C-alpha cells in the first residue's frame, strides 16, 4: 500500500481533476434536491409570519412580518402545557429505557447464559413488529388500570417499545469492548456490577448518547399511542395537542398553526443539529450491522 502511494496519489490527483466538471453537476443536482427537501420547512417558517390576507393571496414570502402569531399560537394551543407534558413523558421514558437497556445490553453482550440467543431474537423481533399489534391490548389494560389520560399511559409503552432499540445498540457496543478490561477489573476484585457500572458503562458513552437522542426524538414525535391513550386536552403531548388544533376554532388558520408547528419543531431541530453525528451513526450502525 505504502509503496504504491506515489502512484495512487497521482491517480487521485488526476481523478479529482477529472471529477471537476462532474462534481459541479453533482453539486447542482444535490442543491436542487436539497431545495425540494427543505423548501416545505421554509414555507412553514414563512407562513408562521403571515396574516390571513397574505396567506389567501397565495404569497410565498411573508412581508410585512407578523410575529404576533407566536404569542397567539402559544396561548391558543396552550403550548406551554403541551411542552411540559411532552418533556416529562419523553424524558422519563428515555431515562428509564436507557438504564434498562444498558443493563440488558451488558447482560446480552458480555455474560454467557442459557437462553441468550432466544432473548436476543425477541429483541430483534421487537425492532420490527408494528406498534399496532399492541395498541388494543394496551388500551384495554390501561383502561382497566384506570391509567388512560395519565402520563404513565405513555411513559410505560414508550419505555417498553424503546427497549428493543436500546438493548440492540447497547449489546452491540458492549460486545465490542476488549475483554482485557474486564479481566483486569476482575483481578482487582471488582464485582460483576462494579465492572458494569465503573469500568464498562463509562466507555459506552457514545452508544448511550445515540440511544438517548434517538429515543427522545422518537417519543417526542410519537402520535398513535398519544392519540389513543390520551383523550383529554390537559394531558396531551405536542403532536396530538397540535392535531386537536386542527378541529378547533383555529381550523384553517394556517399562520397560527404554522407558528405552533415551528414552536414544536424547534427543540427537535436543535437536538438533531447538536447530536446529528451520534444520531446518524447510531441509525446506520443499527441498519448495516445486521
Amino acid at each position, binding site marked *: 500500500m505504502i509503496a504504491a502511494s506515489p502512484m495512487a496519489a497521482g*491517480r487521485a490527483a488526476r481523478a*479529482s481533476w477529472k*471529477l471537476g466538471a462532474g*462534481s459541479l453537476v*453533482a*453539486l447542482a443536482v*444535490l442543491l436542487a*434536491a*436539497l431545495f425540494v*427537501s*427543505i423548501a*416545505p*420547512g421554509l*414555507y*412553514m417558517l414563512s407562513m408562521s409570519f403571515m396574516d390571513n390576507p397574505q*396567506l*389567501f393571496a*397565495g404569497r410565498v414570502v411573508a412581508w410585512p412580518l407578523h410575529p404576533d402569531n407566536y404569542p397567539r399560537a402559544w396561548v391558543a394551543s396552550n403550548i406551554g402545557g403541551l411542552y411540559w407534558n411532552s418533556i416529562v413523558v419523553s424524558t422519563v421514558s428515555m431515562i428509564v429505557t436507557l438504564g434498562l437497556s444498558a443493563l440488558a445490553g451488558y447482560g446480552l453482550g458480555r455474560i454467557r447464559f442459557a437462553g441468550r440467543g432466544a432473548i436476543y431474537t*425477541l429483541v430483534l*423481533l421487537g425492532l*420490527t*413488529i*408494528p*406498534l*399496532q*399489534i*399492541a*395498541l*388494543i*391490548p*394496551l*388500551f*384495554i389494560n390501561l383502561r382497566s388500570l384506570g391509567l388512560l389520560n395519565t402520563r404513565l399511559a405513555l411513559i410505560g409503552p414508550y419505555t*417498553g*417499545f424503546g*427497549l428493543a432499540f436500546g438493548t440492540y445498540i447497547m449489546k452491540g457496543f458492549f460486545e465490542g469492548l476488549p475483554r482485557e478490561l474486564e479481566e483486569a477489573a476482575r483481578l482487582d476484585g471488582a464485582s460483576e456490577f462494579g465492572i458494569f457500572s465503573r469500568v464498562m458503562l463509562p466507555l459506552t458513552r457514545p452508544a448511550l448518547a445515540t440511544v438517548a437522542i434517538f429515543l427522545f*426524538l422518537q417519543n*417526542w*414525535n410519537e*402520535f*398513535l399511542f398519544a392519540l*389513543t391513550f390520551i383523550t383529554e386536552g390537559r394531558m396531551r403531548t*405536542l*403532536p396530538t395537542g*397540535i*392535531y386537536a388544533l386542527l378541529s378547533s376554532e383555529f381550523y384553517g388558520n*394556517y399562520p397560527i398553526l*404554522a407558528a405552533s*408547528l415551528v414552536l*414544536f*419543531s424547534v427543540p427537535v*431541530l436543535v437536538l*438533531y443539529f447538536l447530536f*446529528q453525528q451520534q444520531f*446518524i451513526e447510531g*441509525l*446506520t450502525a443499527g*441498519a*448495516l450491522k*445486521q
Partner: protein
Amino acid sequence: MFLIFPIGYSVWLSFHEWNGYTPSWGPFIGLANYTALFGDDVFWKATVNSLVFIAVRTPLEVGLGFVLALLLNRRLPARSLLRTLFFVPVVMSLIVVTIIFQRIYELNTGLLNTLLREIGLGALAHPWLGDAATALPAVIAVSVWKNVGFSLVILLAGLQSLPRDVVEAGRVDGANVWQLTTRVITPLMRPILLLAGLLSVISGLKVFDLIFIMTRGGPTYSTEVLGTMLYRQAFELNEMGTASAIAVILLLLVLGTARLQTLLFRERGDAAAG
C-alpha cells in the same frame, strides 16, 4: 414480556366478538372476524392501497436515495453539511409535515396549485387530497419526500464501506463513471439496497400518522390502508375483534417481510462462502 403478551392478546381478541365497552371480551366466534374481513370490500381496498403505497414508495425512496448517495459520495465541499440537511425531513414530526403539505395541496391558494397556474398549467389545479384519483399519489409523494433522507444516509454509509481497491481497480481498467457505477458499485451495493428496500417496505406496512392526519383514509377509502382501517375499526366503530384481526394480519405481513430479509441475507452469505 412486553412483546409476547400484546401479540397473544391480539390473536386471542381476533377470535372473539367485542365492542370494547363491556369489561371483558364477548363470545368466541372462531375465524368469523377474519372471514368477515375477507368479505369486506373496504378491507381489500385497504390492502390494495397498502400494497400500492409500498410498491410506488419503496422504489422511489431507495432509487432517489441511491442517486443522491452516489452524488454525495464524491469529494464535494460541505458534504457532511449536505447529508445533515437531507436528513432533516426524517427527524421532523409527521404532524408538522402533514399540516404543511395539506396547505401546499390546498385547492384555491395552496402552493402547488398557485405554482401550476403561474406556469400556465392552471387546468391541472385541483384539490389533490380531496380527489379520490390523486389522493393516494399525493400522500405517497409526501412519504417519499420525508423518507428519502433515511435511505440516503444508509446507502451513503454502505458506499463508504465498499472495498476501495475494487472500485479503484475498475477505474484503472479504464471504466468511466457510468460504467463504474452500474457494473462495479451497484452490484456491490445490492445487499444494502435490498436492506434499505425492506426497511422501507416494513415502515410502509405500518404507516398510520401520515394518512390518518392528511386524509383519514378518504375520500371514499381511496387512501385507506391497513393501519388506518385498524384504528377506525377499534376506536370509531368499536369493533375490537375485527381490529385485532387486522393487527394480526399486519403483524404477519411485517414478519413475513422481515423473514424475507433474513432469507435473502443468508443466500448472500452462502454465495459468499461458496
